[in-house]
């Protein structure tokens, strides 16, 4: 790895960490129970929306009503996006006259965007009209992100409240997340992106004649506004087929830096918000430290693997040395402006955060370079993770870690002043195990079904990796892919649609159930025997729990894919 590689990674982390406290404090104000200067600014708009929808903002919901509201809202979203795609040929803002999307693809896309996955079996610039992109897909980018944040806030209230029967109002949390957090930040990010060259217009594709007298049809569209929320809400669904590798979607190294920052900012800042809302900021920093402890070594491993290049090129007359004049390394599937360092960093960020956007083709990563994104997803998308969902996933792991510690010393486990009992352990186990089970079972199905492995593009172990990656991505709501897999078939659309739905909503409902039972408990006083959960010891314990679950579950599968491929590649096959 070069010095500049480390510099770019370090600069990114430094800027991110500097923004955590201001953004975290802001969000704590947004979701505070009492009115404050932030919520007073938008109170008029909120009141109007609630009146029109017949919502009483002071109605505090128990966890069951909260969960049902969340589910009904998201199912309505799925239905709407499905209908938009099936009728886009009759609707306006379709200058390229695209027809209706096929039923299985439309349903897969609808579930995908509503579950914050943004798995895209389709190619954006040849399938979706501008109306579908802006009114269907981009809207789900906002609402699925807001849903994740809302559920997280409800879970935090479960820890913070004592003897309470309610965890909040889903409508208010959703609306506040959208109006105060997602919209303003997206607007700013969209304009920053346009300044770098991302397109934002409503004109049809333009015909150009190249210097060598060829023809090019240049795609256009309202891309920047969608890309901003794609990153900010850890959605990942690009406007164009190759996502943030496309020069119109990510034109410069600076736009790339903004996009990477946008992915991590809310998940990182919510750690601070969590600490603030439970009355002990050290708890938030401890969770953030755990996430960094897992993220940084894996990122360095990825970049180092890519910088080492592809051994298959060693026998050819190719210069892949890093120098002042070129990035070198494994440049297949990467863009010149991003080189190795920022392609690698982006890949690590997007798979740590359940975003799923890509600025390089993951199918062309070296075996170890592809193992890191895969494993980051398989850890459960808790290393920063999706907006809201990453933190509530990590809190489930924290409950498990506290439980294990309690077993080791023979005391009733407690976390943040609440006793962790059988019900909480059951819900935490569900949250941890549902994605693991989905990945393992559904990959097995794909591997034995002819319709499954028919879609594979690369031979041998790498083909298995393609299938494993796809199911991992869907079952952890990530949305990125090893793009060679032909996944726009009924088999894959149905299998991955089921994975995405089951990974998102039952898990969220389990965490809401935990929140409900926690909120009702009284606080346990802190004694000399309480396990402190803000210390380096706990941070290490939590990181180890995440790693052990991820390694035990997935080492066999990884051995069949990236690990075998790495061994073959290193020995010259």
């Amino acid at each position, binding site marked *: 790895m070069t010095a*500049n590689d480390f510099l770019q990674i370090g600069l990114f982390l430094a800027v991110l960490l500097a923004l955590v406290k201001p953004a975290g404090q802001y969000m704590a104000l947004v979701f505070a129970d009492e009115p404050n200067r932030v919520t007073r600014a938008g109170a008029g708009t909120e009141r109007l929306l609630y009146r029109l*929808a*017949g919502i009483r903002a002071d109605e505090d919901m128990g966890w069951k009503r909260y969960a049902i509201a969340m589910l*009904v*809202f998201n199912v*309505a979203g799925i239905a709407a996006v499905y209908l938009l795609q099936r009728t886009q040929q009759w609707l306006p803002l379709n200058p390229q006259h695209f027809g209706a999307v096929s039923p299985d693809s439309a349903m897969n896309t609808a579930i995908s965007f509503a579950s914050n996955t943004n798995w895209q079996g389709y190619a954006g*610039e*040849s399938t979706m009209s501008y109306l579908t992109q*802006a009114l*269907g897909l981009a*809207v789900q980018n906002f*609402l699925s992100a807001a849903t994740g944040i809302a559920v997280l806030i409800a879970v935090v209230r479960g820890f913070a409240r004592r003897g309470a029967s309610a965890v909040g109002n889903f409508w208010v949390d*959703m609306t506040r997340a959208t*109006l105060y957090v*997602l919209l303003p930040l997206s*607007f700013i990010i969209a304009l920053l992106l*346009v300044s770098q*060259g991302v*397109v934002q217009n409503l004109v049809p594709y*333009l*015909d150009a004649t*190249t210097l*060598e007298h*060829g023809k*090019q049809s*240049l795609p*256009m569209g309202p891309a920047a506004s969608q890309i901003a929320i794609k990153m900010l809400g850890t959605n990942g669904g690009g406007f164009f087929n*190759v996502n943030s590798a*496309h*020069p*119109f979607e990510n034109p410069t*190294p*600076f736009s790339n*830096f903004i996009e990477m920052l946008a992915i991590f900012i809310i998940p990182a800042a919510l750690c601070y918000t969590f600490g603030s809302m439970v009355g002990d900021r050290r708890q938030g920093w401890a969770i953030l430290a755990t996430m960094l402890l897992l993220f940084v070594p894996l990122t360095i491993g990825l970049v180092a693997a890519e910088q080492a290049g592809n051994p*298959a*090129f060693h026998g050819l007359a*190719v*210069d892949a040395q890093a120098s002042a*004049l*070129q990035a*070198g390394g*494994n*440049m297949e*599937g*990467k863009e*010149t*402006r991003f*080189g190795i360092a*920022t392609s690698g960093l982006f890949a690590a960020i997007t798979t740590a955060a359940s975003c799923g956007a890509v600025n*390089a083709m993951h199918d*062309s990563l*070296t*075996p170890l370079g592809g193992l890191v994104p895969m494993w980051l997803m398989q850890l459960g998308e808790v290393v920063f993770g999706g907006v809201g969902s990453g933190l509530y996933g990590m809190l489930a792991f924290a409950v498990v870690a506290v439980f294990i510690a309690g077993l080791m010393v023979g005391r009733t486990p407690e976390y943040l002043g609440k006793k962790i009992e059988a019900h909480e352990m059951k819900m935490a186990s569900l949250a941890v195990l549902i994605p693991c089970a989905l990945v393992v079972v559904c990959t097995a199905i794909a591997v034995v079904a002819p319709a499954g492995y028919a879609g594979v*593009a*690369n031979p041998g172990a*790498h083909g298995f990796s393609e299938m494993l990656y796809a199911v991992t991505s869907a079952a952890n709501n990530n949305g990125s892919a*090893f*793009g*060679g897999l032909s996944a726009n078939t009924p088999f894959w659309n149905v299998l991955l649609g089921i994975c995405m739905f089951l990974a998102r909503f039952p898990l969220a409902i389990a965490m809401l159930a935990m929140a409900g039972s926690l909120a009702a408990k009284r606080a346990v006083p802190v004694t000399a025997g309480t396990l402190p959960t803000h210390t380096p010891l706990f941070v290490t314990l939590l990181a180890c729990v995440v790693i052990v679950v991820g390694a035990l579950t997935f080492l066999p599968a990884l051995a069949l894919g990236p690990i075998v491929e790495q061994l073959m*590649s290193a020995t010259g096959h």
Partner: protein
Amino acid sequence: MSRLIRQAVVLFLLLTAVTGVLYPLAATGVAQVLFPAAANGSLVKKDGVLAGSSLIGQSFTQPGYFWSRPSATSPGPNNPAASSGSNLGPTNPALTDAAKQRIDALRKADPGNDAPVPVELVAASGSGLDPEISPAAARYQVKRVARARGMDVAKVEALVDAHTKGRQLGVLGEPRVNVLELNMALDATGR
């Protein structure tokens, strides 16, 4: 329950209107006022006709032009209507076959140049539309371009340096050369 469904549907429609109509329209309006050239595709005109975008790569096959990165779009390379990478895995024999073909093509167009080929000219880009190449890739092609156009090697090198962008803010990304802009500058010299 029916009250809850009504609340869900109405709030969904309201938030759709805000995030799906107001927001993109506002963003488009402000973007068109503040950054019109960028918002409309960074278009490049030659003799009054649209010749492409400085952000979208084009195919160049003549020895007198600098060549772009290999592109895996179909039906032909650098097709912006269907952005695509090759998605070839590192152990796929098709990858080394494609690399060998590209090395042969480069060497045939530039006999006498036995230097190893910079990897960016041998590896397909992620988007298939990469508008830039590394300075090393540009330098590799300088003698061929100079010979084909009957120009001084030093003059061509100077043009390459003039069109080389350094890392943004001194540290972000990679140094790179915009192929379309460089080739248009070459044409503008009249040789």
